[in-house]
């Protein structure tokens, strides 16, 4: 009998070819899939592979997504994107998605992820894959080059931190608020070298896209990654996108597995939260800062522009107009999200309210693309990070909130509680 294990320990043990692993063990794992993007990908790994004089270990296990510098805004970004295309061609990478959306979203939409996989991503929000029940974590370019060369990577087995949610989420609160709460309690870096496993009744009834937001923002906790045990909701999601997968029953923590710690949260008293500059952990209830004026409201990023996020924004914006002096920028997380939101009327609602449609990509989130801020400007954003200068000028200020709260601020011209908009909407 192998020792009782957490979900992550089971996946790591499988990838390492071992019966079981313990936190602290340093193991070498076979990588099931490697994902990289235009910023940290080919332009950084190609020189290393050349130096090593090796090719890609298995082109079918590599996915490349151009999302950071799309669409090109100058000669430099055009050159980076062109380099990605050339590299994918010469390395026979068929799984290349050019300007189709943000990597973490594209990876799931295109059925690359299955429960129990061990995946590395060349981006810090790679934990998003945990929503499918993968152990997926972010690595830098040299680590990625080593994976491409050998098909394996080392890992120090992390402890598992259980984050347990019970109670029902109220109107106008969502996964983003849950994570801002977790950031406030744990602090940025509060889960460093640990994996966060989300458990409990609230999680069990949460839609798949909302689970993606939870796992995505474990990056802000400094976690190795985030993960959720795949269940019927996962299975339904995977079937809906045509993923063929094996039985799910194996991929859960044993009842007597050792968790480093289990933190308990109550969803029923959760309020809409806002993280004030310059840290996702500077969290306060929206009503504490509801006079803060905003110049820009941004619905974007892998964290906050999935189909569900657009639905939330539309629920608030329906029948309203963006305030004078405020610009509401909308960058759906993928072209598929744009297309579905067009078909179901969501996009129309958002555009009627005055939203400005932007390309699908990282854009303003990381200050790489269109929509950056100038000196002293204030932005409320559905993204995951509000570090100083991230979205533009070092004197700009970014407030993080849910799509509901971002949409409400766009209407009011200042930060405000989104719930009154939803109460009138349901009348």
């Amino acid at each position, binding site marked *: 009998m192998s020792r009782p294990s957490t979900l992550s320990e089971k996946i790591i043990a499988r990838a390492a070819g071992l019966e079981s692993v313990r936190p602290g063990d*340093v193991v070498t794992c076979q990588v099931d899939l490697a994902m990289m993007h235009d*910023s*940290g990908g080919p332009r*950084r790994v190609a020189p*290393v592979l050349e*130096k*090593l004089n*090796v090719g890609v270990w298995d082109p079918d296990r590599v996915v490349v997504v151009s999302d950071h*510098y799309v669409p090109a805004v*100058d000669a*430099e*970004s055009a050159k*980076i994107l062109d380099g990605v295309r050339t590299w994918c061609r010469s390395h026979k990478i068929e799984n290349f998605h050019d300007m189709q959306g943000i990597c973490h979203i594209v990876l799931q939409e295109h059925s690359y992820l299955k429960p129990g996989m061990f995946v590395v991503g*060349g*981006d*810090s929000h*790679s934990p998003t894959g945990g929503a499918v029940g993968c152990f997926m974590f*972010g*690595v*830098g*370019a*040299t*680590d990625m*080059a*080593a994976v491409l*060369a*050998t098909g394996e990577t*080392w890992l*120090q087995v992390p402890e598992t931190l259980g984050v347990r949610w019970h109670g029902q989420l109220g109107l106008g609160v969502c996964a983003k608020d849950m994570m801002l709460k977790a950031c406030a309690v744990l602090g*940025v*870096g509060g889960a*460093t*070298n640990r994996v966060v496993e989300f458990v409990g009744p609230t999680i069990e009834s949460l839609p798949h896209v909302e689970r993606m937001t939870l796992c995505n923002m474990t*990056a802000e906790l*400094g*976690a*190795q990654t985030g993960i959720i045990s795949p269940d019927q909701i996962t299975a339904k999601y995977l079937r809906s996108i045509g993923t063929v997968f094996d039985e799910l029953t194996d991929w859960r923590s044993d009842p007597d597995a050792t968790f480093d710690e289990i933190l308990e949260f109550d969803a029923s008293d959760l309020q809409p939260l806002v993280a004030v500059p310059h*840290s996702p952990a500077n969290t306060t209830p929206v009503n504490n800062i509801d006079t803060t004026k905003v110049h820009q409201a941004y619905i974007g990023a892998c964290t906050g522009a999935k189909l569900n996020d657009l639905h939330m924004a539309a629920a608030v914006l329906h029948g309203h107009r963006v305030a004078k002096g405020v610009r509401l920028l909308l960058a759906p997380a993928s072209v598929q999200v744009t297309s579905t939101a067009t078909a179901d009327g969501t996009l129309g609602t958002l555009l009627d309210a005055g939203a400005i449609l932007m390309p699908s990509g990282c854009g303003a989130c*990381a*200050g*790489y693309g269109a929509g*950056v801020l100038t000196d002293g400007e204030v932005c409320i954003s559905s993204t995951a*990070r509000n*570090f*100083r*200068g*991230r979205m*533009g000028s*070092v004197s700009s200020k970014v407030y993080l909130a849910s799509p509901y709260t971002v949409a409400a601020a766009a209407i009011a011209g200042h930060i405000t509680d989104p719930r009154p908009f939803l109460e009138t909407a349901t009348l």
Partner: protein
Amino acid sequence: MKSHRVWLLGNDIDTDVLAPGAFMKGSIEELSKHCLEAIEPGFAEKVKTGDVIVAGQNFGAGSSREQAALVLKLLGIEAIIAQSFGGIFFRNAFNIALPLFTVKSIQGISAGDQLTIDIETSQILNQNTGQKVIAETLPVHLVSIVRSGGLIPHLQNRLAQQQKHHPQ
């Protein structure tokens, strides 16, 4: 033993202040000129080869961009001593042979102090105060990566070994 001048920084020094997004498109040399400018103006001009950074918790939090570690290395930073590090930054730094030392407390270390660091024993000695700090012991494989000059030379050695054992 060589002594190193200290740059003292606070908690949560993130990858966006180390490698600002606006300059990520260009060369690493250009990017390095903007390293830490948001919180420590003039850092890139004033830092000298052999200097070290001493910081609080969660140094290198945020993005997976390896440039955050590369710019420090390029500017001549020889080691970073902090109470904790962002997980991806931790791997990135060792992969490019920039050693990191985790210590319980940084109290008693001031900006401009001169430190000596013994990688073998993880012992840090403050020349100005005589204070000794022992950092957490590094996993053996990380020490061997730094000794090889980073992950790539380390891999080159390994691939060469494999060649020797299994000539094609």
